[in-house]
């Protein structure tokens, strides 16, 4: 099943490359176009994710929600059942913002595998390629081999790096420009999607904040270690994500500034004697 998934991805990727004319830079452009295609297909998922995240964030400021947090702070079971009640009443899916993100992981992995399979840098890889694209019939793989893996200054089959004449063991390919761009765009995307919060004890905001640090590091490490074709995918996908958030009016540009994700705290009214 997974193999059919990879084969389908590989075939579409190669088909785009073939339509583009197979020349230098064309495989990189094929990856970009394929990413746009994937983004279009997963657009509803992403929209649902934004909607879910927004609903969860609004819930943190809900009076009933805050009340049950205080009331059942020591009774986790009761707290959970009350939370579920509020979810039901307000029509919120608690995993609505999380599941679309999880669904994208297999897509990332499949895309990575289809890129490496299409580039076929080893004999075994080439043999697998012959079987990946041919089951769908309409593509003549024979005429496409070997793929031209050059894109700008990169070889898409190798980790990216600009030679800098320094011998740094964990950066054997040189200055990792793409990895840095991947980390930056991931960070920007994560920050833009973080809603402002007025609640200092907001767990959801704390988690979002943590993920906005984890994910850039994780994807940056992927870009540093794996073939640069994957980094091209990450950057394109991140930029499209930012574009989608902006289009839907969800981008919170103030978050890019230090302390920009905090709304002014609502002062509790002073008790009078």
């Amino acid at each position, binding site marked *: 099943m997974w193999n059919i998934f990879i084969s389908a991805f590989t075939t579409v990727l190669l088909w785009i490359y073939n339509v583009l004319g197979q020349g230098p830079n064309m495989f990189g452009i094929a990856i970009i176009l394929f990413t746009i295609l994937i983004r279009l297909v997963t657009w509803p998922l992403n929209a649902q994710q934004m909607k879910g995240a927004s609903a969860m964030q609004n819930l943190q400021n809900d009076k009933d929600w805050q009340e049950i947090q205080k009331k059942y702070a020591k009774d986790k079971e009761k707290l959970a059942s009350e939370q579920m009640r509020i979810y039901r009443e307000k029509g919120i899916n608690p995993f609505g913002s999380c599941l679309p993100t999880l669904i994208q992981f297999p897509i990332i992995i499949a895309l990575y595998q289809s890129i490496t399979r299409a580039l076929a*840098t080893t004999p075994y890889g080439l043999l697998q390629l012959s079987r990946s694209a041919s089951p769908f019939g309409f593509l003549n793989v024979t005429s496409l081999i070997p793929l031209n893996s050059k894109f700008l200054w990169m070889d898409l089959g190798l980790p990216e790096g600009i030679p800098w004449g320094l011998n740094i063991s964990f950066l054997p390919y040189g200055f990792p420009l793409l990895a840095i761009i991947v980390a930056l765009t991931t960070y920007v995307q994560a920050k833009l999607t973080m809603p402002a919060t007025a609640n200092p004890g907001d767990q959801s905001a704390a988690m979002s904040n943590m993920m906005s640090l984890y994910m850039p590091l994780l994807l940056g490490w992927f870009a540093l270690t794996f073939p640069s074709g994957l980094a091209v995918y990450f950057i394109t996908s991140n930029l499209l994500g930012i574009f989608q958030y902006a289009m839907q009016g969800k981008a919170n540009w103030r978050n890019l500034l230090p302390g920009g994700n905090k709304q002014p705290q609502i002062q509790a009214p002073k008790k009078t004697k």
Partner: protein
Amino acid sequence: MSKKFLFLAAALLAVILLSGCTGGSVRGNTWPGLSATNDVAYLTDGPFVYAINLKDGTELWRYPDQRSNKLLFYTTPYVTSDGLVIVGSSGSDASLLALKPNGNATPTVAWSYAGVKYHWVAAPLQIDDRLYAPNSDGNLYVFDLSGGQADKQPIKVLELATDLWAQPVTDGKNLYISSLDHNMIAVDKDTYQILWNEDLGSAITSSPILASDNLYVGSFASNLEKFDPANGDHASVQKTNDWVWGTPSLIDNNLYFGDISGNLYSYNLETGKYNWNPITLKPDNWAPNSTKTPDESKATAITASPLAVNDFVLVATESGAIYKVGQDGNHELWGGQQQQPGGKIYTTPVLAGDLVLVAPMTADAYLYAYDLNGTQKWAYKPAN
């Protein structure tokens, strides 16, 4: 908290899955390389180069002694006339290494060259004191073996193509090199002048064979191609059912070669015709109650060159079976069903004295030795 856990678990899963598919120093990234002298078999299989004693299948040495995440080996080890073992790495350190065996100790690196960015797929070729090493960057690197410097530099770098995956062959005067990007190229071995360069229109993964004053090579256009070495004039002499991967083997006046659908061909150089209709070597000859079952998939590719042994050829297949094929086309499982190594065999078997060496991918052991009747003599599996 559950969301956080799910997200982190997914990220971790992604790391594991992606890491599992990369070209790191892991076995199984592609098939191993195998060669042998009279006493020693040399095997490249992932992070190590192994030297194995042919007498009993024991490990003599491995290089490097500790796994390195920068080195990855699968080129066919090439033994020079003075006993150096030349291997190219496909890891992030894409060095060409000349290993100097030293008994059972880890060999020393007599010299190395780290000036390429791309990985090594093809084995080099020595002619006199010159070593001709094709790299997948499309360049042919020529080294002077008479110099003793440790940091060796090529005396000539010839830009021939975009991808070179096959070892050059020579008629003593010229080199003939096939490229993955569709070309067959002739180069004067002394002047390095390109004599001719012919486009076949499809990829070539194997070296050509010189037979009856002509060059023969199989291509991904599913053809057997014939070249005139003098001027590069060429023609497709026979069609095949699928891509031809390995170099044809010659017995008497007949060429034997396979395709990736599992068909074996026998081409007569005199008549210019096939001796018989292609034989499909599929594992349906296996008995159903066997404890050694063939690969359940329909993977039956023949990527290895048939090995000429006396008056028959041994054909190793992706299904893990080795077939003995006579000149009349009669074929059988070599040595019987219980002797088959299993796994997937893509590497050309090697004849070393009275032993046939087979290096499967994904089998129990890394290397199997058989006598000429197909009876297993020993199997080598690294201790760690």
